[in-house]
């Protein structure tokens, strides 16, 4: 499994193939719940994360994704359910006896130690001999491209540099699973994009399991082999980025991952003629004329707003005075003068195949 991946990690990603049946399991969550008094931070979560997988946990703040990570790390214990790490029950196993390391959101670098001492710390408390741990720490520094900053203190570094030190500090222990809790959250956009590429490359090179918590759907989609979408303590969907985007299984996922037109209830029946809620992506809708074919749906409405985004433009179309549809068109087509203007009566249409059915009415 691992060998296949390192030969062609891209294959995995581009085709978004779900993990094979024969995958080696790294972490297994069995109906795990975590309650704080009345609050259900995590409600009966089950998931299986494969060895060498880049697995993201995506959701808005308070959705339970960080709690889930903390349970795997061992900082908290599940109220019910069990967690298996590499096949062993981790219930009651303290963090220091788990073969798992964490990169914290605020880095959690020890302020009274130099960067090198920070990186060495894990090896030191495990009793690794001094010469070996110095060498391994130096290697880890080189791996994150900061070979010369070992003697400085964490507060003398920039946010991006601290992030790398935190990464090195975790990786020097050679964990089989690396947990990352919104590691790029504090960085600015350019740096974040650069780090995304580096993190992904690093994961491929090392072949270890990454469990990555983020609230940024773009980040989750671009880096992950699979993504678990959390909402209000529950798991909405676990799937490849492609399927998550193209085939969301719940209203929440359709709304949270990318932009989507979600139609529920009576209007859904009126528009599609079928008793399902559905979603349709803005880029799958276009302006049309004439009657629909059996494979398409046409509806008319009024154009109420146009937003220009450079590469594309978005048109807001009001249907029957209440529903609002977003339509996304590439900007070169804006040159065509058939495009409507705000206030115009328009007809929009899409292929039935592009619709995602989200559940019976």
């Amino acid at each position, binding site marked *: 499994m691992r060998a296949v991946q390192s030969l062609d990690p891209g294959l995995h990603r581009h085709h978004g193939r779900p993990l094979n049946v024969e995958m080696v399991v790294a972490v297994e969550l069995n109906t795990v719940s975590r309650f704080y008094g009345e609050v259900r931070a995590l409600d009966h979560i089950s998931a299986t994360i494969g060895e060498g997988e880049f697995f993201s946990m995506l959701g808005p703040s308070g959705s339970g994704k960080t709690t889930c990570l903390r349970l795997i790390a061992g900082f908290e214990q599940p109220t019910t359910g069990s967690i298996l790490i590499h096949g062993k029950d981790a219930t009651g196993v*303290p963090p*220091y*006896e788990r073969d798992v390391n964490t990169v914290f959101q605020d880095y959690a670098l020890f302020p009274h130690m130099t960067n090198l001492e920070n990186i060495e710390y894990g090896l030191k408390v495990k009793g690794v001999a001094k010469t070996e741990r110095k060498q391994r720490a130096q290697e880890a520094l080189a791996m994150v491209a900061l070979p010369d900053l070992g003697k400085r203190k964490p507060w003398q570094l920039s946010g991006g540099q601290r992030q790398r030190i935190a990464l090195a500090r975790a990786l020097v222990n050679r964990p089989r699973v690396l947990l990352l809790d919104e590691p790029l959250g504090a960085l600015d956009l350019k740096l974040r994009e650069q780090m995304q590429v580096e993190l992904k490359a690093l994961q491929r090179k090392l072949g270890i399991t990454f469990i990555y918590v983020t609230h940024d759907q773009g980040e989750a989609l671009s880096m992950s082999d699979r993504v678990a979408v959390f909402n209000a303590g529950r798991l909405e969907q676990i799937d490849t980025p492609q399927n998550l985007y193209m085939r969301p299984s719940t209203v929440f996922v359709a709304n949270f991952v990318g932009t989507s037109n979600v139609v529920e209830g009576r209007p859904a029946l009126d528009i599609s003629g079928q008793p399902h809620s559905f979603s349709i992506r803005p880029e799958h809708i276009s302006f049309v004329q004439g009657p629909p074919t059996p494979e398409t749906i046409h509806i008319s409405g009024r154009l109420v707003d146009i937003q220009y985004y450079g590469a594309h433009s978005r048109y807001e179309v009001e249907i029957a005075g209440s529903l609002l549809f977003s339509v996304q068109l590439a900007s070169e087509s804006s040159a065509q003068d058939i495009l409507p203007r705000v206030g115009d009566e328009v007809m929009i249409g899409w292929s039935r195949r592009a619709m995602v059915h989200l559940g019976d009415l």
Partner: protein
Amino acid sequence: MTTPVKSHIALRRNISSFLYRRSTVYLLLLLLPPLLWFGIVYLGSLLALLVQSGYTFDDFSMTVLPVFTWKNYQNLLLAANFDIVLRTFAMATAVSLFCACLGFPIAYYMVRYAGGWQRGFFYIAVLLPMWASYIVKVYSWTVILAKGGIAYWFINQAGLGHALESLLALPFIGGNTLSTSHLGRLLVFSYVWLPFMILPIQSSIERINPNLLTASADLGARPGQTFRTILLPLAMPGVVAGSIFTFCLTFGDYIIPTLVGPSGFFIGTMVYTQQGAIGNMPMAAAFTVVPIVVIGLYLTFAKRMGAFDAL
């Protein structure tokens, strides 16, 4: 392979893991020693004191009998004893007022005008006298106020000797000399507790948005009106917080009334005398209940005023 060192590490790991899994046990282990000390030694002592306030003191044999009586509390209401309570109460109130009047402008200056080096300077300058030896500070005042001492020398140099004489001749304030007058005692009490008033006021003024004062002025209020209607109400929790210290500390003190001011007992000196010279522990215990009750009431009042947030 199990060298002593290895087994030592294994033992430590086992203990750590046990405590990790049983975090309540861990918490209890941490809390047990301090709780034993405070729960048993300290609270037990307070309880013992309360119990003793109900014991009987035999005036003839001068011994304490463990027989319950209300007599000690009834004795508190005797004119002589009640005077002591009133005297202490009056002094505590006067000290609090005096400290507030003096402390407020200092605190206000610290927040509004002390910048740069002055900031640290004022902070330390208030902190140092607060922590400096209490007994030495009181001693120093006995030196300053003594007849022929510094205070008298300066007053005479300024030609105010007669003014002082007539001031000391006033009832309630006066006394024979500065160091045996109520005025002198008020001065020393206020001196000793003044920093405890300045710091809470300072922190409560610091929390007032300065734009409020500007807005008040902008809306046409004169400085006096702004002070009365904006600054003082908003800084009040700080003043009350400060007065918790000045009031309660004065109420329970017994060194200053012994060393400065006219004769006449304070609650503190009375407790000390009853317990020490007379050996009437039950009466002393009954006297200590007065400050406990008064301070309890005062703290309740202060909490209502929001003073605890200003601490």
